[in-house]
């Protein structure tokens, strides 16, 4: 037994619980005991025990039933079954269901030591397996793009195909759908993968600054240009340039970029010497560029130039089947980053998250999970942990009156405290009678 483990002993006999936990404490393991299967499941909900020692014969829920539940809901927890002589069949059944080992009561002290050594070995193998699986997934899939919906599968299939060519790609999708991740995946799968990937958000830079960033400038051509600087179109040399929010760039910049794409040459600001450039362009937009073409703000010839291949990334509300997978991914990510053992979401909370429209798409979902993980006191996230989603303010068409704001705020607090008036009144710092009056006056009701 090398490393410290979190162990739960589940047995209806106190003397067995006491004996085993005393023994494990002598190895510095973290030990918890439960006198029934129900109590064990309650504790597993709150804390991820690595190993359970479960007695087969228990009133209420027997050891086999508990083992089945643990293996279904907490497959990472290992289970050792303890059974009395004469119930070997149960031990065999337990092994078939997924028990890691079994012990016949009473056992020799060194048998328990051997079982613990085997468990330790299994644990090491599982860790190694998880690590290698993770590495393999990173190599064969696209890092951080998560999805198993048909729409995402199409994109996964498309990425390696389009990565092989040098054609310009236009990614279309709402904000937060992961356009930059797709662009990075295309770059990673392309022959340019060992060369730079440079991402620029065109919407975040004023036109003159964007021009300077892309084309570079000579020393002294404008105030503050204290030294010559190469533009990203030159710096990217051989790599991939990702221009996000391409719909935001000015018509002049569209012409300049069009010329670069046709001639593969750039001239930096203040210079007369053109420089050869080589890059693959991937653009992205959350706007309707067709509308821009119609109203004249977006050049049609530039559109066709950047839109040789178009990839439409669906919003999260159109691929809700990916939500559980994304949540699991973000739980692992933030569980690791925050070192908090939060690895589950209750069914109710999952339903809520699936029902929600996610206007901010995957980015909003990621932020929601991160916030819930950071604030959670338990290993399982419930509806309360995502209460802030229901209170997200809708875009306003007109300013709210003070009374409307008060009404909305009271409703939100009541929902957060599950309509517990005492707790809600404390949070609002008013007395319960006043809160009851306000509920009546505003005609507030529990939201479905």
């Amino acid at each position, binding site marked *: *037994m*090398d490393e410290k483990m979190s162990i739960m002993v589940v047995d209806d*006999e106190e*003397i*067995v619980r*006491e*004996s*085993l936990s*005393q*023994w494990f*404490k*002598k*190895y*510095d393991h973290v030990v918890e005991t439960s006198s029934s299967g129900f109590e064990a499941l309650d504790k597993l909900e709150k804390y991820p025990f690595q190993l359970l020692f479960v007695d087969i014969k228990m009133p209420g829920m027997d050891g086999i039933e508990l083992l089945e539940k643990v293996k279904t809901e907490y497959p990472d927890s290992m289970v050792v079954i*303890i059974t009395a002589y004469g119930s070997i069949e149960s031990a065999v059944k337990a092994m078939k269901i997924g028990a890691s080992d079994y012990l016949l*009561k*009473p*056992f*020799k*002290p*060194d*048998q*328990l*030591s051997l079982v613990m050594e085997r468990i330790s070995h299994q644990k090491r193998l599982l860790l190694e397996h998880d690590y290698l699986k993770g590495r393999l997934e990173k190599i064969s899939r696209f890092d951080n793009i998560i999805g198993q919906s048909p729409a995402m599968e199409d994109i996964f299939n498309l990425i390696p195909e389009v990565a092989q060519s040098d054609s310009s790609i236009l990614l279309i999708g709402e904000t937060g759908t992961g356009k930059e991740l797709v662009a990075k995946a295309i770059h990673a799968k392309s022959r340019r993968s060992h060369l730079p990937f440079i991402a620029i958000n065109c919407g975040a830079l004023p036109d003159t600054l964007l021009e300077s960033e892309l084309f570079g400038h000579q020393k002294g051509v404008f105030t503050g240009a204290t030294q010559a600087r190469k533009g990203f179109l030159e710096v990217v040399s051989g790599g991939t340039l990702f221009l996000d929010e391409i719909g935001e760039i000015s018509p002049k910049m569209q012409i300049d970029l069009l010329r670069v794409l046709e001639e593969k040459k750039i001239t930096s600001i203040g210079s007369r010497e053109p420089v050869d450039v080589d890059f693959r362009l991937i653009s992205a937009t959350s706007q309707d560029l067709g509308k821009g073409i119609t109203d004249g703000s977006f050049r049609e010839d530039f559109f066709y130039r950047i839109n040789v291949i178009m990839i439409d990334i669906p919003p999260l509300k159109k691929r809700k089947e990916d939500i559980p997978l994304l949540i699991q991914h973000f739980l692992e990510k933030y569980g690791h980053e925050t070192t908090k053992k939060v690895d589950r979401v209750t069914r109710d909370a999952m339903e809520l998250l699936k029902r929600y429209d996610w206007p901010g798409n995957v980015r909003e979902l990621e932020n929601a999970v991160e916030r819930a993980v950071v604030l959670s006191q338990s290993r399982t996230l419930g509806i309360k942990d995502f209460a802030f989603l229901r209170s997200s303010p809708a875009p306003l068409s007109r300013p709210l009156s003070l009374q409307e704001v008060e009404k909305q705020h009271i409703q939100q607090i009541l929902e957060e405290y599950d309509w517990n008036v005492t707790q809600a009144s404390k949070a609002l710092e008013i007395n319960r009678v006043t809160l009851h009056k306000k509920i009546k006056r505003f005609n507030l009701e529990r939201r479905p």
Partner: protein
Amino acid sequence: MSSKKRLVGVVPLGEVPEIALKVIAAHISGYLNLSVQILPPLEHPEYALDEKRFQYNAGIILKAFESKRFKDYDKVIGVLNLDLFIPIFTHVFGEAKQGGKFALVSLFRLRKNPDGSPSPSSLTYERAAKVALHELGHLFNLLHCREKNCLMHFSGGIQDLDETPIYLCRYCSTFLKDRLFRQSDNEESLKKLDKIPLNLLSSKERFRQ
């Protein structure tokens, strides 16, 4: 002896050879530099007999110890010539609650070699001393050690016990020294503790002489 603080009591339960008690006391005193006193025998623990197993329940005996008057002793080790068990195990050589006050040592299974042949008394008492020091280690909060060459390594059978040395590894000896240091409120013993070479490899040889 009288100038030392009475720290550890060694108490026989029922009939136990006096030599066994003396060997255990000498080892505790010699290896850990603690004061040891052999106490008058307690009654045979009939109350702890499990009639189905014909063995004595160590947990019940330890619980009974709590009602005895041992307030002058920091730790008490009960020695028996009976077959001990705890409910999950077929048997135990000794038993102690981690960080507790009372421990038990059974001579019953120490008299036979792994092949079933009777062992010489000297070897039986050496084993008893190892079990006593090991259990005393638990009373001072030492954990089972993964180092095979350490007295605190778990011994499941007689062969393991014979292969286990009577000295502590460097880590456990440092830990024990720290525990003893903290628990001692006697200026004199603090000074002495500072000089204890707990990790003397030569102590094994010293024991054999």
